[in-house]
């Protein structure tokens, strides 16, 4: 069953725009879908005390993260009538402007897809054991804090 399987969500490096486009194209055969919702997280070049964030380096407790994601997936499928849901999170160094998180939900109708996508993103940020290290231009870093 799609909702029970532990799927890998991690990709080394950024999520490429071509990968996202291909992922959308693959859904053309699923003609029961009436609405997709996509969230893309992009690395922001924040200025912190005159230093600019050049990139974020992501690390994770991968085994625990995949188990947690599997539980989140199960909960979301139980709550929302989704046709499918895809999650991709980057690991390693992701430069400012690159995509580090891709959440893609599809359903018969838009509201379900949008609400499920929002809930999934919020839960990923709150519950997945992933850490971001904000690397400054030149030298130095600070650990990212999720608000």
């Amino acid at each position, binding site marked *: 069953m799609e909702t029970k399987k532990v799927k890998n969500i991690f990709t080394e490096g950024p999520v490429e725009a071509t990968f996202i486009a291909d992922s959308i194209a693959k859904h053309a055969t699923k003609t029961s879908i009436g609405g997709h919702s996509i969230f893309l997280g992009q690395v922001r070049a924040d200025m912190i005390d005159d230093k600019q964030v050049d990139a974020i380096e992501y*690390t*994770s407790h991968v085994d625990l993260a995949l188990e947690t994601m599997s539980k989140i997936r199960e909960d979301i499928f139980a709550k929302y009538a989704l046709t499918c849901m895809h999650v991709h999170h980057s690991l390693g160094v992701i430069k400012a402007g690159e995509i580090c998180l891709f959440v893609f939900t599809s359903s018969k109708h838009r509201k379900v897809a949008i609400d499920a996508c929002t809930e999934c*993103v919020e839960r*990923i*940020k709150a519950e997945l*054991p992933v*850490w971001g290290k904000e690397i400054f231009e030149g030298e130095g870093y600070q650990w990212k804090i999720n608000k």
Partner: protein
Amino acid sequence: MIEVMFFGQLTDSTGVSSVMVEEVANTDMLIDMMKMRYPSLASSKYMVAVNNTMVTENTIITPGSKVAFMPPFSGG
């Protein structure tokens, strides 16, 4: 042996990402042991997972277990 893993900013506090320790009975004893070894852990915020299960109360650690010390998450 037990594998103790540190993540995120805790790797700065301890200087290591993982360390092997002799058998320890439970998580309270392991936490005390780690605070002795890495004093800056005492002032750090973290959660503990034993073999991929988050624990909030003192938990028995069986030999061969993996215990993770994890600071607040900041993914996405």
